[in-house]
């Protein structure tokens, strides 16, 4: 089961946050094929967002084939996004976890850590990256 956290100050619409968090959980392998997503009531009771927002996020994910709405049963994961190397017990995960712990111990804030990672990615010139889901959505809005 996944717990959604909605950041109201981020400027990212809540339905996008739900989609992103689901995709992240699928990449990390914390959500797997066959898992059930929380019901709209469960999500809104925990996050105090509009129920229609949750339904919209679920519908969006159904359209992209990530989940399936089974009438009367709930919403289930139908496709995984996990890639080799990103599982819980992979060496890459272990190293970044250690590294983040060191960064925090050195007094770096969340934003500093994110900035460092972004800078490292940029320096690496990740031209074959397909972009983050957030970018995709913003592009859609600008179009």
């Amino acid at each position: 089961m996944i717990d959604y956290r909605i950041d109201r100050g981020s400027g990212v619409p809540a339905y996008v946050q739900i989609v992103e968090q689901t995709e992240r959980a699928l990449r990390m392998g914390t959500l797997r094929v066959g898992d059930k997503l929380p019901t709209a009531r469960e999500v809104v009771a925990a996050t105090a967002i509009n129920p229609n927002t949750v339904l919209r996020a679920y519908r969006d994910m159904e359209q992209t084939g990530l989940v399936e709405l089974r009438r009367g049963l709930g919403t289930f994961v139908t496709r995984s996004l996990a890639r080799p190397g990103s599982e819980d017990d992979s060496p890459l995960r272990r190293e970044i976890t250690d590294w983040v712990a060191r960064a925090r111990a050195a007094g770096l804030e969340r934003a500093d850590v994110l900035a460092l990672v972004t800078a490292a990615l940029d320096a690496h010139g990740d031209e074959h990256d397909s972009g983050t889901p957030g970018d995709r959505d913003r592009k859609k809005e600008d179009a």
Partner: protein
Amino acid sequence: MTGPDASAALCATGLGFQYRRRGGRALRDCGFTVPSGRITALVGRNGAGKSTLLHLAGGLLRPGSGELRVLGTVPGTPEARARVALLTQDKPLYPRFTVADTLLMGEKLNSSWDRTTAERIVREGGIPLHVRVGELSPGRRTRVALALALGKRPELLLLDEPLADLDPVARSEIMAELMAEAAERAMNIVLSSHVLPELEETCDWVLVLRDGRVELSEDAEVLRESHALLTGPADQADTLAGQHTVVRSRTSGRQLTALIRQRGPLRGDWHVERPGLEDVLIGYLQAGEPGQPATTRVERTEAAA
């Protein structure tokens, strides 16, 4: 002229109201429709007419002119009263009643009463049932009043600044409770609030009042998507105003910042940001102030419909 929409949560045509003592018109010529299945934010500055509108919808006041329908019925009639619950700012409760008495009163006064929900809302606030309502903190009184309103299982819940006297934790708990109830039984909610960030992800319809008139009655997502926050050179201001509706703008030196409702593609050299609902609402609340363009007439599409 559209007739009253029977399925709408709220529908007003030419609605006006005047308080005898205060003078001045609290509401004038209001025409709007709030579709059903929505959670509506009722927004406006102090004195804009929010409470008056909610009192009219709850049947506590009668329109001076025009008409208002709630769920297709006339407010205040037995049919409307059974389906609509109104929680006013003063939260009228009997201070000498205990919490248990108050809930019992709700049960006796309403033909359909959801005791489980009412008791759960009170219990989740950690409120002892034997205490007199008058001895409760304002936040707890709000919770009891809300339990009373939700216990009624209304199809339309009208809330006049329901969270104003709650602490931040209680605010988000109550809001979550409201959203969960809305999810579970497709309850319509109209809530007035000055706390705009709270409305951002909770409300999907927006009703903005200014000086007793309806400024906006629109889908929240449509509002967000049709508006843009612009920053650019001040000398483009006129071209901008010619192409789009400028809700609010400010010039400092050579730079112009503006909230616009986009009418077609943007021309010129602008830095564009998508506004949040809060940005849009603030823009409309500030528009019409001294030094701001008056967009009111253009925007009152609903009223003209």
